[in-house]
């Protein structure tokens, strides 16, 4: 297990470096010049040079990249801002705030949104899928399957405001979605994020319902389930103890991918519900051609996804004893 983890973490570092390189390159491949943008309408060449120097853009590309990369591990010295302790992701071109602390401030919002939604999606999806498989062919199954298809076809930027309008403004059942730190007040944290979680789950659950249902049906047709029945195990025991483990494996795989989608989709979700998370930072960074912020958000987001995928891999080994993490 340790060798597996070590290898995966090393691999993750390589991936993250690669991602940062690509982002760096793409940024400079864009036609928009950030220095020019900050210069203003009337831009004198001297001001432009000064801005470029302040932003560190007069140095060769690879030197800039090296400064950024080494800053993460060893910290950096900025003429403008002074010392920046490791991990240093630089300072935002636009707001001058330290990128790292900006991300750290907003990370819990995105995390709460994503993980909370994941819990709702998985539990609801798997439950309804199992129910549909248990009562396959009967009305409950048909209802579960068809509503899930409708759910999957909805779009968050449409459903989100609709639900907010209905539940918050019209019915007054729940407060407007916002972020209250978990450490401050868990209950308020929960209640204020309930609507985004539920809306996200309407859209994502469908997949899991369908997948769980078909996986369960497939597992129930497997030989070892037949053996369990031949041993006299009751229908319920066969269903819940035997069949579900095999069914979970592909579901976890898909979930690993969906997690990335959820995290990436945070951009839209946060806009829809005006939550101040990393997604918002990312959008602003692109709009402002803010290289350090962009790099920071991309790398942190990628790191989160890679980490969660490692967790998923480790989970496999617990569910399926045939998987050797060597």
């Amino acid at each position, binding site marked *: 297990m340790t060798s597996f983890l070590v290898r995966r973490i090393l691999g993750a570092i390589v991936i993250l470096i690669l991602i940062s390189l690509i982002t760096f390159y793409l940024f400079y491949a864009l036609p928009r010049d950030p220095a020019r943008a900050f210069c203003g309408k009337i831009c004198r060449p001297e001001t432009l040079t000064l801005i470029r120097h302040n932003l560190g853009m007069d140095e060769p590309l690879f030197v800039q990249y090296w400064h950024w990369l080494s800053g993460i591990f060893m910290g950096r010295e900025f003429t403008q801002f002074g010392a920046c302790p490791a991990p240093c992701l630089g300072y935002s071109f636009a707001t001058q705030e330290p990128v790292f602390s900006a991300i750290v401030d907003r990370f819990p919002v995105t995390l709460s949104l994503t993980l909370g939604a994941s819990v709702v999606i998985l539990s609801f999806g798997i439950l309804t899928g199992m129910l549909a498989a248990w009562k396959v*062919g009967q009305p409950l199954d048909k209802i579960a399957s068809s509503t899930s298809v409708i759910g999957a076809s909805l779009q968050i930027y449409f459903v989100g405001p609709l639900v907010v309008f209905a539940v918050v403004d019209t019915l007054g059942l729940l407060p407007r979605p916002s972020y209250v730190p978990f450490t401050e007040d868990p209950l308020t944290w929960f209640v204020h994020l309930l609507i985004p979680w539920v809306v996200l789950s309407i859209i994502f659950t469908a997949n899991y319902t369908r997948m769980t249902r078909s996986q369960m049906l497939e597992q129930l047709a*497997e*030989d*070892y389930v*037949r*053996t*369990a*029945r*031949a*041993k*006299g*195990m*009751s*229908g319920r025991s066969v269903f819940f103890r*035997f069949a579900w*483990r*095999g069914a979970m494996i592909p579901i976890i795989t898909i979930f690993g991918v969906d997690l990335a989608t959820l995290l990436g989709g945070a951009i839209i979700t946060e806009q829809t519900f005006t939550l101040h998370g990393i997604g918002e930072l990312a959008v602003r960074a692109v709009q402002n051609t803010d290289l350090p912020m962009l790099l920071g958000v991309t790398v942190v987001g990628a790191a989160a996804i890679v980490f969660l995928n490692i967790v998923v891999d480790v989970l496999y080994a617990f*569910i*399926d*004893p*045939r998987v050797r993490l060597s």
Partner: protein
Amino acid sequence: MTTVSWSSEPGTSRGPEPFLSVRDLSVRFSTEDGVVHAVDGLSFDVEKGTTLGIVGESGSGKSVTNLTILGLHDPAHTEVDGEIWLEDQELVGAGASTLEKLRGNRVAMIFQDPLTSLSPFHTIGRQIGEVYRKHKGASKKEARDRAIEMLERVGIPQPATRVDHYPHEFSGGMRQRAMIAMALVCDPDLLIADEPTTALDVTVQAQILDLLKDLQQQFGTTIILITHDLGVVANTADNVLVMYAGRAAERGTVREVLSKPSHPYTWGLLSSMPRLTSSVDVPLVPVRGTPPSLLNRPAGCAFHPRCDFPQLVGSDLCFTQRPDISPENGHGDACYLTLQQKRDIRTGDTKEQA
């Protein structure tokens, strides 16, 4: 070797009362393409403490019959008619909870491929133990001890360590032994082995068959052995039932059926087997044609499209009327040829082979 009695009423036979009695069993599956008649009017008995070998090609209905004994078919798409008597318990009409109590307890089944038939997610000890816990109400510790005892009984080395291993950590032969251990943990009266050695190599096959014979001797278990291998039948079974297209073609003791076969299908099976004693140049004579579709079965005798002898039967009975097994007791077959005709054909064949 006592002749088996095949009377139509269980308990009224001349010989001892049969342990398992199947009467006019019919199993139909409704599929998208139509109704598949997997088993059509099958009757046979099994005496206590004996081994019945059921032989047939794929699609002959042998596995379906045995799954029906345990009631393991999907009730939504299966129609079962007829009776199956396990001593005084009728199985076809029995409720789900009755069947659950029987399975793994009085009647146990082992399957062909132990790798797919064992759960990959649970240890062998757990899988063996849970049957014991379910039917005998044992505690976890008792179940584990029993599992170790069973593993030892079937000849698995170091049972105390291997009990915590997963199926994929066993070799093929060991897995099959483990499955046998799992089937025997509650000391069942009837063991149904569905092609237990097909997935194994020949040396392991011999070991497994010996194991089954030993266990039968020790515990008096009645065994139904399903196979397509006549060699296995000759080695291990007391009585044989040859099945074709969901019906019985021939039945009797092993000696009767294999040395004096009386159904053209059995002749075909025996002559398509390579013999160590025959010359290398003599070609194998397979039964021509392919097994019939169970959706659209031929009228009359199911075997007639592949049979070389329907013209010997005076009328066109073979094509119109399905033959019943005759004689009813002892060595019987479902064929319209007369005894004399069969004898002539058989000796004629023997002459050809020699």
